[in-house]
């Protein structure tokens, strides 16, 4: 355990600083506001990806429903913005002015009571974090207390994503239905659609993301992080040592949910709308692949993975939409089959040894161990459930 911890302590700051430099200095200098806004949008998925690193890489719990929390955070923010955009003057054409347009289209004549808290920004900001976290707590508490985990937990999170999508689409008078909430304009009178606002939002987003990475790093380095890892590898031993394993998992799940929700809220602010298409299964799984490609054990890698996949998507879908789907498919399969530790794993096993060697002259490259192949346990797959990927490779 100590060895792991030492390795974690080493390095880490360097790559964090590099990432911060790229996001804060390089991108804004190199890109026009259109591309920068796109990067800002991608980075909101980065919140989900680092949440997944904590939950999946460290906790060994795979959630295929992170879109739920991303969406809830985004919707909470969107509700506030929508109310602000629906003042009686600009909605004068409606039969009931002063309520959001989609309510009017669905013959609602007054604002539902549960919308009222979203007239206040502080309450909205609390809701952005609190609602998804609470939902995450309820789901995960019910599951983990009964020791439901692994693949089965993953498909339950999927079911939740599905159910929420159907609810949002079905209750269109209250949620905007399949259209989502569109045409969001101002935040406390501040026009979020202008270029200057986009710059400011981008930097807020980057600040929050770097802060989240630092927070997760801190958790990883604390005893809690060590326990999460231990639990992922041998849950029973941790349990027999007297720890309440399920509560650690609940914590990891809630943390990932809260991070996703922040991402969702930032998405709404930067893109100007929220739609149920983020809540469903497809985006949730795509977000898992961001983390997987970056390296499921690496917070920084997850951010790079997110950027890489999304740049790829934008670039390829502009020129070859058909090819993109095949490529995406190949990416999924190869990241699972060939390099399960993602970009960070490749860096650890190929690039870093060389760097180290150059630095220390003829230092033994062996000191950095290549990620061991998942141990082959001759047990039934069923008993393997919950262990997830058995990789003990560390990087930050």
């Amino acid at each position, binding site marked *: 355990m100590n060895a792991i911890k030492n390795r974690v302590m080493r390095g880490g700051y360097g790559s964090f600083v590099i990432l911060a430099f790229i996001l804060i200095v390089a991108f804004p200098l190199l890109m026009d506001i259109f591309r920068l806004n796109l990067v800002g949008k991608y980075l909101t998925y980065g919140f989900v990806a680092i949440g997944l690193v904590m939950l999946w890489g460290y906790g060994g719990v795979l959630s295929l429903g992170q879109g739920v929390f991303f969406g809830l955070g985004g919707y909470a923010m969107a509700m506030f913005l929508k109310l602000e955009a629906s003042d009686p003057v600009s909605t004068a054409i409606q039969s009931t002015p002063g309520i959001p347009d989609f309510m009017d*289209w669905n013959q609602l004549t007054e604002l539902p009571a549960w919308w009222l808290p979203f007239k206040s920004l502080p309450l909205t900001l609390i809701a952005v974090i609190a609602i998804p976290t609470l939902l995450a707590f309820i789901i995960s508490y019910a599951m983990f207390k009964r020791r439901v985990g692994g693949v089965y937990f993953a498909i339950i999170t999927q079911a939740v994503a599905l159910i929420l999508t159907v609810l949002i689409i079905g209750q269109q008078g209250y949620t905007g239905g399949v259209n989502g909430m569109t045409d969001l304009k101002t935040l406390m009178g501040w026009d979020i659609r202008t270029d200057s606002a986009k710059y400011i939002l981008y930097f807020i987003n980057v600040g929050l993301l770097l802060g989240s990475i630092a927070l997760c790093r801190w958790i990883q380095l604390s005893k809690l992080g060590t326990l999460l890892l231990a639990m992922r590898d041998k849950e029973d031993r941790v349990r027999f040592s007297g720890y309440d394993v399920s509560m650690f998992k609940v914590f990891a799940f809630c943390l990932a949910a809260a991070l996703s929700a922040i991402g969702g809220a930032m998405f709404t602010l930067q893109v100007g709308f929220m739609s149920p298409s983020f809540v469903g299964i497809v985006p949730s799984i795509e977000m898992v692949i961001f983390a997987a490609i970056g390296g499921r054990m690496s917070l920084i890698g997850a951010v790079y993975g997110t950027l890489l996949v999304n740049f790829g998507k934008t670039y390829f879908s502009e020129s070859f939409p058909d090819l993109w*789907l095949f490529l995406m498919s190949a990416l999924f399969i190869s990241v699972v089959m060939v390099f399960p530790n993602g970009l960070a794993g490749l860096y650890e096993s190929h690039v870093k040894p060389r760097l180290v060697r150059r630095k220390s002259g003829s230092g033994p490259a062996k000191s950095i161990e290549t990620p061991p192949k998942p141990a082959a346990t001759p047990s039934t797959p069923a008993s393997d459930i919950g262990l997830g990927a058995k990789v003990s490779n560390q990087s930050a």
Partner: protein
Amino acid sequence: MSSKSDQSKMSLDRRRLLQGLAALPLVSMSGLSFGQAFPTTKVNTTGLAITDTEVTVGQLHSATGTMAISETGSIQAEQLAIDEINAMGGILGRKIKVIKEDGASDWPTFAEKSRKLLVNDKVATVFGCWTSASRKAVLPIFEKENGLLYYPTFYEGLEQSKNVIYTGQEATQQIIWGLDWAQKEKGAKKFFLVGSDYIWPRTSMKIARKHIENFQKGSVVGEEYYPLGNTNFNSLINKIKIAKPDCIFCAVVGGSNVAFYKQLKAAGITANKQFLLTLSVTEDEMLGIGGENFEGFYASMKYFQSLENDNNKKFVAAFKAKYGPKAVIGDVTQAAYLGPWLWKAAVEKAGSFDVDKVVAASPGIELKTAPEGYVKIHENHHLWSKTRIGMGQADGQFKVVAESPELIEPNPFPKGYQ
């Protein structure tokens, strides 16, 4: 209202006069001389992607994902129109260059791509979107960046934007005349309304219900919405059997559509026993439903492939020559085909590609070469158009059985229907 319909009569008369002139050669004869007559600095004062020989436009539809089923026709029709315009020498002496973007059936992607087209590529106009959701997602961007969108789908109305030209019908155009026909010709008094659960069917049914109850003095004996993608309609069919409506009036879309008609037929509800009028089955949907499952039911649309007129014969022939003899053309496909032509006419009237000038020139633009007959852009950016009733045939085509005598005025914010 009455003065408006007088107007439409007048324009009809004028159409007859002008028909002899056969508009086409008028535009095509000029060719290269436009290039000198319209220097780029004059026709493009807002920095759009226009050179002396080329004008760049965007095309934004779903080539992948669930909506590719529907949007493929629009992509093809717009491409056909652009090719034809280029073959005639282009617009103001400039060939049209298309940047194709894939919305991937995902509304946020539509938003991202539309911003890319407008901000990055500086396209002169965009032809695109299909679902209401995708249009709602891109609308604020078009308004903010002052772009221009030609939107082909029949839709729910309740919208009018300076930056959008709606080439499909809005709800009242499609619904009201169809309902009146159902009452007059089929004696329908009791209606059962069925739709997929989203904004377009809900708004359409709201308009239908008001019209049936307040104007036709008929009754609505049932109103049901099913989630998008629902594939099981047996319980609904039993409810219809209990209600015994004169007319099933429906707006079911997507994969649900196929399941709905297959299950109707399997439950013994066929055209010889039951009158059914739909807003959402075009020749494109018939490919999936299968003609034998829709035979004898009716659809209310502004265009059917089997429409008898010279414009349409030419259009169908050109479409099949380009996309194969099995290609079919639905209402939206035809509306998408109108987009580039309407834009061309507006640009030439304005003598400029500037969005503001094109928008200002758009109201009143007529298209006599439209496959659906004659259309004209209204002040509210929708099209005056006729509504037709088609009866489904076993081969997947429609037989046009009725046609509104006048052009119907678009009325996206109908009074008394909200």
